[in-house]
Protein backbone atom coordinates (compact mmCIF):
# COMPACT_ATOMS: atom_id res chain seq x y z
CA UNK A 1 0.00 0.00 0.00
CA UNK A 2 2.70 2.48 1.00
CA UNK A 3 5.19 1.78 -1.74
CA UNK A 4 3.49 3.60 -4.62
CA UNK A 5 3.29 6.60 -2.32
CA UNK A 6 7.05 6.57 -1.81
CA UNK A 7 7.62 6.58 -5.56
CA UNK A 8 5.05 9.29 -6.04
CA UNK A 9 6.54 11.40 -3.27
CA UNK A 10 9.94 11.14 -4.95
CA UNK A 11 8.51 12.27 -8.27
CA UNK A 12 6.62 15.12 -6.69
CA UNK A 13 9.74 16.27 -4.83
CA UNK A 14 11.82 16.09 -7.99
CA UNK A 15 9.32 18.04 -10.02
CA UNK A 16 9.07 20.69 -7.30
CA UNK A 17 12.84 21.09 -7.36
CA UNK A 18 12.82 21.32 -11.14
CA UNK A 19 9.93 23.73 -11.16
CA UNK A 20 11.49 26.02 -8.56
CA UNK A 21 14.67 26.15 -10.56
CA UNK A 22 12.82 26.81 -13.77
CA UNK A 23 11.35 29.99 -12.37
CA UNK A 24 14.79 31.58 -12.16
CA UNK A 25 15.58 33.73 -15.16
CA UNK A 26 18.14 32.21 -17.52
CA UNK A 27 21.40 34.20 -17.83
CA UNK A 28 21.76 36.34 -20.96
CA UNK A 29 23.23 34.34 -23.81
CA UNK A 30 26.67 35.56 -24.82
CA UNK A 31 29.69 34.12 -26.57
CA UNK A 32 32.76 32.99 -24.69
CA UNK A 33 34.79 36.08 -25.64
CA UNK A 34 32.22 38.38 -24.07
CA UNK A 35 31.96 36.08 -21.08
CA UNK A 36 35.75 36.28 -20.52
CA UNK A 37 35.73 40.06 -20.81
CA UNK A 38 32.74 40.40 -18.44
CA UNK A 39 34.36 38.04 -15.99
CA UNK A 40 37.69 39.80 -16.20
CA UNK A 41 39.43 36.43 -16.08
CA UNK A 42 40.77 34.09 -18.77
CA UNK A 43 40.89 30.51 -17.45
CA UNK A 44 43.71 28.60 -19.12
CA UNK A 45 44.46 24.90 -18.70
CA UNK A 46 48.09 23.95 -18.45
CA UNK A 47 49.54 20.86 -16.82
CA UNK A 48 52.82 21.90 -15.16
CA UNK A 49 54.26 18.50 -16.06
CA UNK A 50 56.05 19.80 -19.13
CA UNK A 51 58.98 22.05 -18.40
CA UNK A 52 60.09 24.34 -19.91
CA UNK A 53 56.65 25.04 -21.36
CA UNK A 54 54.90 24.83 -18.02
CA UNK A 55 56.17 24.11 -14.52
CA UNK A 56 55.45 24.81 -10.87
CA UNK A 57 56.83 27.78 -8.99
CA UNK A 58 57.63 26.87 -5.42
CA UNK A 59 56.94 29.28 -2.57
CA UNK A 60 54.92 31.51 -4.85
CA UNK A 61 52.45 33.83 -3.17
CA UNK A 62 49.02 34.38 -4.64
CA UNK A 63 48.36 38.06 -5.30
CA UNK A 64 45.92 39.33 -2.68
CA UNK A 65 43.66 40.98 -5.29
CA UNK A 66 43.43 37.95 -7.59
CA UNK A 67 40.10 37.10 -9.16
CA UNK A 68 41.09 33.43 -9.48
CA UNK A 69 38.92 31.04 -7.50
CA UNK A 70 40.22 28.70 -4.82
CA UNK A 71 40.80 25.76 -7.11
CA UNK A 72 42.45 27.87 -9.78
CA UNK A 73 46.11 28.82 -9.81
CA UNK A 74 47.33 32.36 -10.32
CA UNK A 75 49.93 33.39 -12.88
CA UNK A 76 52.48 33.65 -10.07
CA UNK A 77 52.34 29.94 -9.26
CA UNK A 78 53.37 28.62 -12.65
CA UNK A 79 56.12 29.53 -15.10
CA UNK A 80 57.27 28.56 -18.56
CA UNK A 81 56.88 29.40 -22.24
CA UNK A 82 53.18 28.43 -22.42
CA UNK A 83 52.52 30.32 -19.21
CA UNK A 84 54.17 33.50 -20.53
CA UNK A 85 52.23 33.23 -23.79
CA UNK A 86 49.00 32.79 -21.77
CA UNK A 87 49.78 35.83 -19.67
CA UNK A 88 50.48 37.89 -22.79
CA UNK A 89 47.19 36.81 -24.40
CA UNK A 90 45.27 37.70 -21.24
CA UNK A 91 47.07 41.02 -21.00
CA UNK A 92 46.11 41.92 -24.56
CA UNK A 93 42.52 40.85 -23.84
CA UNK A 94 42.62 43.15 -20.83
CA UNK A 95 41.85 40.42 -18.27
CA UNK A 96 43.63 38.47 -15.53
CA UNK A 97 44.90 34.97 -16.30
CA UNK A 98 44.04 32.04 -14.04
CA UNK A 99 45.22 28.47 -14.55
CA UNK A 100 43.77 25.04 -13.93
CA UNK A 101 46.03 22.00 -14.09
CA UNK A 102 44.11 18.94 -15.30
CA UNK A 103 45.89 15.98 -16.83
CA UNK A 104 46.71 16.19 -20.53
CA UNK A 105 44.16 13.48 -21.50
CA UNK A 106 41.34 15.56 -20.09
CA UNK A 107 42.42 18.57 -22.13
CA UNK A 108 42.74 16.81 -25.49
CA UNK A 109 39.46 14.95 -25.03
CA UNK A 110 37.43 18.16 -25.33
CA UNK A 111 34.08 18.48 -23.53
CA UNK A 112 35.64 20.63 -20.85
CA UNK A 113 32.22 21.43 -19.41
CA UNK A 114 33.25 25.10 -19.39
CA UNK A 115 35.71 24.43 -16.59
CA UNK A 116 38.30 26.45 -18.48
CA UNK A 117 38.18 28.69 -21.53
CA UNK A 118 41.26 27.73 -23.49
CA UNK A 119 44.25 25.44 -23.49
CA UNK A 120 47.60 27.09 -24.06
CA UNK A 121 49.50 23.86 -23.80
CA UNK A 122 51.70 23.48 -26.89
CA UNK A 123 49.04 21.32 -28.48
CA UNK A 124 49.84 19.99 -31.92
CA UNK A 125 47.20 20.59 -34.55
CA UNK A 126 45.95 17.18 -35.70
CA UNK A 127 42.84 16.17 -37.64
CA UNK A 128 41.71 13.94 -34.73
CA UNK A 129 41.85 16.77 -32.23
CA UNK A 130 40.07 19.07 -34.65
CA UNK A 131 36.96 16.92 -34.16
CA UNK A 132 36.55 18.17 -30.61
CA UNK A 133 38.61 21.35 -30.51
CA UNK A 134 39.13 24.64 -32.33
CA UNK A 135 42.75 25.62 -32.92
CA UNK A 136 44.11 29.15 -32.86
CA UNK A 137 46.92 30.52 -35.00
CA UNK A 138 49.97 28.40 -34.03
CA UNK A 139 52.27 30.27 -31.66
CA UNK A 140 55.35 28.12 -32.31
CA UNK A 141 56.55 24.86 -33.78
CA UNK A 142 58.25 21.92 -32.22
CA UNK A 143 60.81 19.94 -34.14
CA UNK A 144 60.38 16.23 -33.38
CA UNK A 145 63.66 14.39 -33.02
CA UNK A 146 64.92 10.97 -32.01
CA UNK A 147 67.14 10.53 -28.96
CA UNK A 148 69.36 7.58 -28.13
CA UNK A 149 71.62 6.67 -25.20
CA UNK A 150 74.92 8.54 -25.08
CA UNK A 151 76.82 5.20 -25.02
CA UNK A 152 75.38 4.16 -28.37
CA UNK A 153 77.69 4.24 -31.37
CA UNK A 154 75.92 2.00 -33.90
CA UNK A 155 73.04 4.34 -34.74
CA UNK A 156 73.85 7.33 -36.93
CA UNK A 157 70.56 8.50 -38.41
CA UNK A 158 66.85 8.16 -37.52
CA UNK A 159 66.17 5.46 -40.15
CA UNK A 160 68.64 3.16 -38.30
CA UNK A 161 66.00 2.79 -35.56
CA UNK A 162 63.65 0.88 -37.87
CA UNK A 163 62.57 -2.40 -36.22
CA UNK A 164 64.08 -1.45 -32.85
CA UNK A 165 62.60 -0.64 -29.45
CA UNK A 166 61.33 2.92 -29.50
CA UNK A 167 59.31 4.61 -26.78
CA UNK A 168 57.26 7.75 -26.49
CA UNK A 169 54.06 9.05 -25.00
CA UNK A 170 51.10 6.90 -25.99
CA UNK A 171 48.33 8.56 -27.96
CA UNK A 172 50.45 11.58 -28.79
CA UNK A 173 51.77 12.70 -32.16
CA UNK A 174 55.07 10.79 -31.76
CA UNK A 175 53.03 7.60 -31.29
CA UNK A 176 51.14 8.33 -34.53
CA UNK A 177 54.32 9.24 -36.41
CA UNK A 178 55.90 5.92 -35.45
CA UNK A 179 52.72 4.13 -36.49
CA UNK A 180 52.86 5.94 -39.80
CA UNK A 181 49.45 7.54 -39.37
CA UNK A 182 50.34 11.08 -38.35
CA UNK A 183 48.76 13.80 -40.41
CA UNK A 184 49.66 17.40 -39.83
CA UNK A 185 47.63 19.87 -41.81
CA UNK A 186 49.92 21.82 -44.10
CA UNK A 187 52.82 19.36 -43.94
CA UNK A 188 53.84 16.29 -45.95
CA UNK A 189 55.12 13.49 -43.75
CA UNK A 190 58.19 11.40 -44.47
CA UNK A 191 58.07 8.28 -42.28
CA UNK A 192 61.78 7.50 -42.16
CA UNK A 193 61.51 5.02 -39.28
CA UNK A 194 59.52 1.85 -39.96
CA UNK A 195 58.15 -1.12 -37.97
CA UNK A 196 59.42 -0.16 -34.53
CA UNK A 197 58.60 -2.13 -31.39
CA UNK A 198 56.68 0.68 -29.75
CA UNK A 199 56.39 1.20 -25.98
CA UNK A 200 53.85 3.81 -24.88
CA UNK A 201 54.29 5.92 -21.75
CA UNK A 202 52.06 8.39 -19.92
CA UNK A 203 54.43 11.11 -21.08
CA UNK A 204 57.53 11.10 -23.24
CA UNK A 205 59.67 12.22 -20.30
CA UNK A 206 59.00 8.81 -18.74
CA UNK A 207 60.25 7.23 -21.95
CA UNK A 208 63.43 9.33 -21.71
CA UNK A 209 63.88 8.09 -18.12
CA UNK A 210 63.70 4.51 -19.33
CA UNK A 211 66.08 5.17 -22.18
CA UNK A 212 68.58 6.63 -19.72
CA UNK A 213 68.72 3.29 -17.85
CA UNK A 214 71.16 2.12 -20.50
CA UNK A 215 71.53 1.59 -24.22
CA UNK A 216 68.97 -1.01 -25.23
CA UNK A 217 68.11 -1.94 -21.63
CA UNK A 218 64.48 -1.03 -22.07
CA UNK A 219 64.59 1.16 -25.16
CA UNK A 220 66.89 1.83 -28.08
CA UNK A 221 65.45 5.24 -28.83
CA UNK A 222 62.81 7.79 -27.94
CA UNK A 223 60.95 10.13 -30.24
CA UNK A 224 60.17 13.42 -28.55
CA UNK A 225 60.25 17.14 -28.89
CA UNK A 226 63.73 18.45 -29.56
CA UNK A 227 63.50 20.96 -26.66
CA UNK A 228 62.28 18.22 -24.27
CA UNK A 229 65.19 15.97 -25.13
CA UNK A 230 67.64 18.84 -24.91
CA UNK A 231 66.17 19.73 -21.50
CA UNK A 232 66.73 16.31 -19.92
CA UNK A 233 70.24 16.17 -21.39
CA UNK A 234 70.88 19.50 -19.65
CA UNK A 235 69.63 17.89 -16.43
CA UNK A 236 72.30 15.24 -16.81
CA UNK A 237 70.55 12.28 -18.44
CA UNK A 238 73.09 10.39 -20.59
CA UNK A 239 71.31 10.86 -23.93
CA UNK A 240 72.02 12.42 -27.30
CA UNK A 241 70.01 13.55 -30.29
CA UNK A 242 70.03 11.30 -33.34
CA UNK A 243 70.25 13.24 -36.58
CA UNK A 244 68.00 16.10 -37.68
CA UNK A 245 64.40 16.66 -36.65
CA UNK A 246 62.07 14.31 -38.57
CA UNK A 247 59.12 16.69 -38.76
CA UNK A 248 57.74 19.88 -37.31
CA UNK A 249 54.60 20.23 -35.27
CA UNK A 250 52.48 23.37 -35.25
CA UNK A 251 51.50 24.22 -31.72
CA UNK A 252 48.36 26.17 -31.02
CA UNK A 253 46.04 27.25 -28.30
CA UNK A 254 42.87 25.12 -28.33
CA UNK A 255 39.24 25.75 -27.43
CA UNK A 256 36.36 23.43 -26.70
CA UNK A 257 33.87 23.03 -29.55
CA UNK A 258 31.25 21.79 -27.10
CA UNK A 259 31.33 24.72 -24.69
CA UNK A 260 27.94 26.13 -23.75
CA UNK A 261 28.87 29.57 -25.00
CA UNK A 262 30.15 29.91 -28.55
CA UNK A 263 33.94 29.69 -28.44
CA UNK A 264 34.66 30.73 -32.05
CA UNK A 265 34.84 34.48 -31.37
CA UNK A 266 37.40 33.87 -28.61
CA UNK A 267 39.38 31.54 -30.88
CA UNK A 268 39.42 34.18 -33.60
CA UNK A 269 40.36 36.94 -31.17
CA UNK A 270 43.20 34.86 -29.71
CA UNK A 271 44.43 34.06 -33.25
CA UNK A 272 44.45 37.76 -34.06
CA UNK A 273 46.40 38.54 -30.86
CA UNK A 274 48.91 35.75 -31.57
CA UNK A 275 49.51 37.11 -35.06
CA UNK A 276 50.17 40.52 -33.53
CA UNK A 277 52.59 38.85 -31.10
CA UNK A 278 54.35 37.18 -34.05
CA UNK A 279 54.46 40.49 -35.88
CA UNK A 280 55.85 42.58 -33.04
CA UNK A 281 58.47 39.96 -32.09
CA UNK A 282 57.02 39.14 -28.66
CA UNK A 283 56.83 35.43 -29.40
CA UNK A 284 60.27 35.26 -30.99
CA UNK A 285 61.72 36.90 -27.90
CA UNK A 286 60.04 34.34 -25.66
CA UNK A 287 61.22 31.48 -27.90
CA UNK A 288 64.78 32.66 -27.66
CA UNK A 289 64.45 33.17 -23.92
CA UNK A 290 63.22 29.61 -23.30
CA UNK A 291 64.78 27.57 -26.11
CA UNK A 292 67.63 29.70 -27.43
CA UNK A 293 66.11 29.10 -30.88
CA UNK A 294 63.65 30.64 -33.29
CA UNK A 295 60.75 28.23 -33.08
CA UNK A 296 58.10 30.82 -33.91
CA UNK A 297 58.64 32.30 -37.36
CA UNK A 298 57.26 29.26 -39.22
CA UNK A 299 54.22 29.30 -36.95
CA UNK A 300 53.52 32.92 -37.82
CA UNK A 301 53.47 32.02 -41.49
CA UNK A 302 50.94 29.21 -41.01
CA UNK A 303 47.69 29.88 -42.85
CA UNK A 304 44.96 29.17 -40.30
CA UNK A 305 42.23 29.49 -42.94
CA UNK A 306 43.30 26.17 -44.52
CA UNK A 307 42.00 24.34 -41.44
CA UNK A 308 38.49 25.51 -42.44
CA UNK A 309 37.29 25.61 -38.83
CA UNK A 310 34.68 28.34 -39.12
Amino acid at each position, binding site marked *: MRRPYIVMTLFVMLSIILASCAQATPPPAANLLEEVKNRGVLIVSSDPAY*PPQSQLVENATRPADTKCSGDQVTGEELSGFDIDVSKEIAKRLGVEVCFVTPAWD*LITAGSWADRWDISVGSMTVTPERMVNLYFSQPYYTTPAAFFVHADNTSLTQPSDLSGMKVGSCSGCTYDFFLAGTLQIPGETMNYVVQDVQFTGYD*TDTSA*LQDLALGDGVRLDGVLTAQPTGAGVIDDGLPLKQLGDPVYFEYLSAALDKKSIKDSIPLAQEVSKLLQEMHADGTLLKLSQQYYGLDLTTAAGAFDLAQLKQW
Partner: protein
Amino acid sequence: MAVETMQSYGPAGPDPDRSMGEKLMALEKRARLMYTLEVALVWVVLFVILTLALMLLNFDPRYVVEHFNFVLEGLWVTIQLALIAIAFASILALLGALGRLSTNPIAQGVSGFYISLFRGTPLLIQIYLIYLGLPQIGRQLTIMGYPQLGQMFTLTAFQSGVLALSLNYGAYMTEIFRAGIQSISYGQREAAVAIGMTRLQTMRRVILPQAVRIIIPDIGNQFIAMQKDTAQVSVMGIWELTFRANRLARQESKFIEMFITAAILYWILTIVSSWLESRLERRLAHAYER
Protein backbone atom coordinates in the same frame (compact mmCIF):
# COMPACT_ATOMS: atom_id res chain seq x y z
CA MET B 1 64.66 -24.09 37.05
CA ALA B 2 63.13 -27.09 38.75
CA VAL B 3 65.11 -26.42 41.90
CA GLU B 4 64.02 -22.83 41.97
CA THR B 5 60.43 -23.89 41.58
CA MET B 6 60.76 -26.20 44.55
CA GLN B 7 62.30 -23.44 46.62
CA SER B 8 59.45 -21.11 45.94
CA TYR B 9 57.15 -23.57 47.68
CA GLY B 10 59.34 -23.43 50.77
CA PRO B 11 58.27 -21.87 54.06
CA ALA B 12 60.56 -18.82 53.67
CA GLY B 13 58.09 -16.43 51.91
CA PRO B 14 54.99 -15.07 53.55
CA ASP B 15 52.77 -16.49 50.75
CA PRO B 16 54.57 -19.08 48.64
CA ASP B 17 51.78 -19.32 46.06
CA ARG B 18 51.92 -15.61 45.52
CA SER B 19 55.65 -15.48 44.89
CA MET B 20 55.28 -18.36 42.44
CA GLY B 21 52.62 -16.40 40.58
CA GLU B 22 54.81 -13.31 40.51
CA LYS B 23 57.71 -15.30 39.18
CA LEU B 24 55.61 -16.80 36.39
CA MET B 25 54.25 -13.36 35.52
CA ALA B 26 57.76 -11.93 35.36
CA LEU B 27 58.89 -14.74 33.08
CA GLU B 28 55.90 -14.21 30.84
CA LYS B 29 56.53 -10.49 30.69
CA ARG B 30 60.18 -11.08 29.84
CA ALA B 31 59.21 -13.44 27.03
CA ARG B 32 56.77 -10.87 25.66
CA LEU B 33 59.40 -8.15 25.80
CA MET B 34 61.93 -10.36 24.04
CA TYR B 35 59.41 -11.11 21.33
CA THR B 36 58.68 -7.42 20.81
CA LEU B 37 62.39 -6.66 20.64
CA GLU B 38 62.96 -9.40 18.10
CA VAL B 39 60.17 -8.09 15.88
CA ALA B 40 61.59 -4.57 16.21
CA LEU B 41 65.02 -5.88 15.26
CA VAL B 42 63.61 -7.46 12.09
CA TRP B 43 62.04 -4.13 11.21
CA VAL B 44 65.33 -2.32 11.73
CA VAL B 45 67.22 -4.82 9.59
CA LEU B 46 64.65 -4.60 6.80
CA PHE B 47 64.69 -0.82 7.00
CA VAL B 48 68.48 -0.76 6.72
CA ILE B 49 68.33 -3.08 3.70
CA LEU B 50 65.72 -0.84 2.09
CA THR B 51 67.83 2.24 2.77
CA LEU B 52 70.91 0.60 1.29
CA ALA B 53 68.92 -0.39 -1.78
CA LEU B 54 67.74 3.18 -2.16
CA MET B 55 71.28 4.47 -1.87
CA LEU B 56 72.20 2.41 -4.92
CA LEU B 57 69.60 4.36 -6.89
CA ASN B 58 71.70 7.41 -7.71
CA PHE B 59 69.75 9.42 -5.20
CA ASP B 60 70.19 13.16 -4.70
CA PRO B 61 69.14 13.94 -1.12
CA ARG B 62 69.72 17.66 -1.61
CA TYR B 63 66.87 17.85 -4.10
CA VAL B 64 64.58 16.24 -1.56
CA VAL B 65 65.57 18.68 1.18
CA GLU B 66 65.11 21.67 -1.12
CA HIS B 67 61.65 20.69 -2.25
CA PHE B 68 60.38 18.87 0.81
CA ASN B 69 58.16 21.67 2.11
CA PHE B 70 56.43 22.11 -1.21
CA VAL B 71 55.63 18.39 -1.40
CA LEU B 72 54.60 18.37 2.25
CA GLU B 73 51.93 20.99 1.56
CA GLY B 74 50.35 18.41 -0.73
CA LEU B 75 50.09 16.04 2.22
CA TRP B 76 47.54 18.36 3.84
CA VAL B 77 45.43 18.27 0.70
CA THR B 78 45.69 14.47 0.70
CA ILE B 79 44.64 14.29 4.36
CA GLN B 80 41.72 16.65 3.80
CA LEU B 81 40.53 14.67 0.80
CA ALA B 82 40.79 11.34 2.61
CA LEU B 83 39.16 12.54 5.83
CA ILE B 84 36.18 14.17 4.12
CA ALA B 85 35.78 11.28 1.70
CA ILE B 86 35.94 8.57 4.40
CA ALA B 87 33.26 10.44 6.37
CA PHE B 88 30.92 10.59 3.37
CA ALA B 89 31.81 7.04 2.38
CA SER B 90 30.83 5.83 5.85
CA ILE B 91 27.46 7.56 5.58
CA LEU B 92 26.90 6.07 2.13
CA ALA B 93 28.01 2.66 3.35
CA LEU B 94 25.60 2.84 6.27
CA LEU B 95 22.71 3.79 4.00
CA GLY B 96 23.78 1.14 1.50
CA ALA B 97 23.92 -1.52 4.22
CA LEU B 98 20.52 -0.53 5.58
CA GLY B 99 19.19 -0.77 2.03
CA ARG B 100 20.73 -4.18 1.57
CA LEU B 101 19.19 -5.40 4.82
CA SER B 102 15.85 -3.78 4.12
CA THR B 103 12.75 -5.58 2.91
CA ASN B 104 11.68 -2.51 0.98
CA PRO B 105 12.13 -3.26 -2.74
CA ILE B 106 13.10 0.35 -3.57
CA ALA B 107 15.78 0.50 -0.88
CA GLN B 108 17.01 -2.97 -1.81
CA GLY B 109 17.09 -2.12 -5.52
CA VAL B 110 18.77 1.26 -5.13
CA SER B 111 21.50 -0.01 -2.82
CA GLY B 112 22.13 -3.12 -4.89
CA PHE B 113 22.44 -1.07 -8.06
CA TYR B 114 24.72 1.47 -6.37
CA ILE B 115 27.08 -1.18 -5.03
CA SER B 116 27.21 -3.03 -8.31
CA LEU B 117 27.86 0.11 -10.35
CA PHE B 118 30.59 1.62 -8.18
CA ARG B 119 32.38 -1.61 -7.39
CA GLY B 120 32.18 -2.68 -11.00
CA THR B 121 33.91 0.33 -12.54
CA PRO B 122 37.40 1.77 -12.01
CA LEU B 123 37.83 4.74 -9.70
CA LEU B 124 39.70 6.67 -12.37
CA ILE B 125 36.79 6.42 -14.79
CA GLN B 126 34.41 7.48 -12.04
CA ILE B 127 36.60 10.52 -11.46
CA TYR B 128 36.50 11.42 -15.18
CA LEU B 129 32.75 10.95 -15.35
CA ILE B 130 32.08 13.07 -12.28
CA TYR B 131 34.52 15.78 -13.33
CA LEU B 132 33.59 16.03 -17.01
CA GLY B 133 30.41 13.96 -17.37
CA LEU B 134 28.23 15.47 -14.66
CA PRO B 135 28.58 19.05 -15.96
CA GLN B 136 27.27 17.85 -19.32
CA ILE B 137 24.10 16.61 -17.63
CA GLY B 138 23.97 20.00 -15.93
CA ARG B 139 24.34 21.61 -19.33
CA GLN B 140 21.37 19.69 -20.71
CA LEU B 141 19.34 20.79 -17.69
CA THR B 142 20.42 24.38 -18.34
CA ILE B 143 19.29 24.08 -21.93
CA MET B 144 15.98 22.62 -20.71
CA GLY B 145 15.54 25.77 -18.65
CA TYR B 146 16.84 24.83 -15.20
CA PRO B 147 20.09 26.83 -15.03
CA GLN B 148 20.39 26.78 -11.23
CA LEU B 149 19.97 23.02 -11.07
CA GLY B 150 22.39 22.71 -13.97
CA GLN B 151 24.98 24.74 -12.07
CA MET B 152 24.87 22.24 -9.22
CA PHE B 153 26.24 19.55 -11.50
CA THR B 154 29.48 21.42 -12.06
CA LEU B 155 31.60 20.52 -9.05
CA THR B 156 35.07 21.84 -8.38
CA ALA B 157 37.95 19.46 -8.84
CA PHE B 158 38.20 18.94 -5.08
CA GLN B 159 34.48 18.31 -4.71
CA SER B 160 34.59 15.91 -7.65
CA GLY B 161 37.46 14.06 -6.02
CA VAL B 162 35.64 13.78 -2.70
CA LEU B 163 32.47 12.62 -4.46
CA ALA B 164 34.25 9.99 -6.54
CA LEU B 165 36.22 8.63 -3.58
CA SER B 166 33.13 8.64 -1.35
CA LEU B 167 30.95 6.85 -3.87
CA ASN B 168 33.62 4.31 -4.71
CA TYR B 169 34.65 3.51 -1.15
CA GLY B 170 31.07 3.76 0.09
CA ALA B 171 30.19 0.90 -2.24
CA TYR B 172 33.00 -1.27 -0.92
CA MET B 173 32.30 -0.36 2.68
CA THR B 174 28.62 -1.19 2.34
CA GLU B 175 29.50 -4.85 2.59
CA ILE B 176 31.62 -4.15 5.67
CA PHE B 177 28.75 -2.33 7.36
CA ARG B 178 26.28 -5.01 6.33
CA ALA B 179 28.44 -7.77 7.77
CA GLY B 180 28.98 -5.73 10.95
CA ILE B 181 25.27 -5.16 11.44
CA GLN B 182 24.49 -8.80 10.74
CA SER B 183 27.11 -9.97 13.21
CA ILE B 184 25.07 -8.54 16.09
CA SER B 185 23.00 -11.39 17.50
CA TYR B 186 19.30 -11.47 16.78
CA GLY B 187 18.60 -11.48 20.51
CA GLN B 188 19.85 -7.90 20.73
CA ARG B 189 17.26 -6.79 18.22
CA GLU B 190 14.53 -8.75 20.02
CA ALA B 191 15.46 -7.28 23.40
CA ALA B 192 15.29 -3.78 21.96
CA VAL B 193 12.00 -4.43 20.18
CA ALA B 194 10.53 -6.01 23.31
CA ILE B 195 11.00 -2.80 25.31
CA GLY B 196 9.10 -0.97 22.60
CA MET B 197 11.83 0.44 20.35
CA THR B 198 11.10 1.15 16.71
CA ARG B 199 13.37 -0.28 14.03
CA LEU B 200 15.22 3.01 13.73
CA GLN B 201 15.74 3.30 17.47
CA THR B 202 16.94 -0.30 17.62
CA MET B 203 19.45 0.40 14.87
CA ARG B 204 20.68 3.65 16.37
CA ARG B 205 20.81 2.72 20.04
CA VAL B 206 21.56 -0.99 20.05
CA ILE B 207 22.81 -2.40 16.75
CA LEU B 208 25.05 0.34 15.35
CA PRO B 209 27.02 1.10 18.53
CA GLN B 210 27.96 -2.56 18.70
CA ALA B 211 28.51 -2.95 14.98
CA VAL B 212 30.79 0.09 14.79
CA ARG B 213 33.19 -1.45 17.27
CA ILE B 214 33.43 -4.54 15.12
CA ILE B 215 33.97 -2.70 11.83
CA ILE B 216 36.37 0.01 13.04
CA PRO B 217 39.43 -2.02 11.98
CA ASP B 218 37.93 -2.51 8.51
CA ILE B 219 37.08 1.16 8.17
CA GLY B 220 40.64 1.96 9.22
CA ASN B 221 41.89 -0.38 6.53
CA GLN B 222 39.73 1.30 3.90
CA PHE B 223 40.90 4.72 5.12
CA ILE B 224 44.51 3.71 4.59
CA ALA B 225 43.74 2.37 1.12
CA MET B 226 41.88 5.56 0.31
CA GLN B 227 44.78 7.79 1.34
CA LYS B 228 46.76 6.27 -1.47
CA ASP B 229 43.90 6.34 -3.95
CA THR B 230 43.66 10.10 -3.46
CA ALA B 231 46.65 10.16 -5.81
CA GLN B 232 44.23 9.38 -8.62
CA VAL B 233 42.42 12.68 -8.19
CA SER B 234 45.57 14.47 -9.31
CA VAL B 235 44.34 13.96 -12.89
CA MET B 236 41.92 16.80 -12.25
CA GLY B 237 44.80 19.04 -11.34
CA ILE B 238 44.42 18.95 -7.56
CA TRP B 239 47.76 19.84 -6.08
CA GLU B 240 47.95 16.94 -3.64
CA LEU B 241 50.98 14.92 -2.65
CA THR B 242 51.46 12.87 -5.82
CA PHE B 243 50.74 15.82 -8.14
CA ARG B 244 53.36 17.98 -6.46
CA ALA B 245 55.97 15.23 -6.28
CA ASN B 246 55.38 14.23 -9.89
CA ARG B 247 55.50 17.76 -11.30
CA LEU B 248 58.63 18.62 -9.32
CA ALA B 249 60.23 15.41 -10.48
CA ARG B 250 59.72 16.46 -14.09
CA GLN B 251 61.37 19.81 -13.60
CA GLU B 252 64.83 18.37 -13.14
CA SER B 253 64.21 14.71 -13.95
CA LYS B 254 64.48 13.82 -10.25
CA PHE B 255 61.90 11.04 -10.37
CA ILE B 256 63.46 8.68 -7.83
CA GLU B 257 63.96 11.49 -5.33
CA MET B 258 60.43 12.81 -5.56
CA PHE B 259 58.68 9.46 -5.73
CA ILE B 260 60.55 8.20 -2.69
CA THR B 261 59.70 11.41 -0.86
CA ALA B 262 56.03 10.95 -1.69
CA ALA B 263 56.16 7.26 -0.78
CA ILE B 264 57.69 8.01 2.62
CA LEU B 265 55.08 10.67 3.34
CA TYR B 266 52.27 8.26 2.42
CA TRP B 267 53.89 5.61 4.55
CA ILE B 268 54.15 7.87 7.57
CA LEU B 269 50.55 8.93 7.06
CA THR B 270 49.35 5.34 7.08
CA ILE B 271 51.44 4.49 10.14
CA VAL B 272 49.94 7.41 12.04
CA SER B 273 46.46 6.45 10.84
CA SER B 274 46.73 2.85 11.94
CA TRP B 275 48.07 3.97 15.30
CA LEU B 276 45.09 6.27 15.77
CA GLU B 277 42.77 3.50 14.63
CA SER B 278 44.15 1.02 17.16
CA ARG B 279 43.75 3.61 19.93
CA LEU B 280 40.14 4.14 18.94
CA GLU B 281 39.64 0.39 18.83
CA ARG B 282 41.01 0.03 22.35
CA ARG B 283 38.75 2.80 23.64
CA LEU B 284 35.68 1.15 22.18
CA ALA B 285 36.70 -2.23 23.58
CA HIS B 286 36.51 -0.85 27.12
CA ALA B 287 32.97 -2.14 27.76
CA TYR B 288 33.97 -5.63 26.73
CA GLU B 289 36.90 -6.10 29.11
CA ARG B 290 36.39 -8.02 32.30
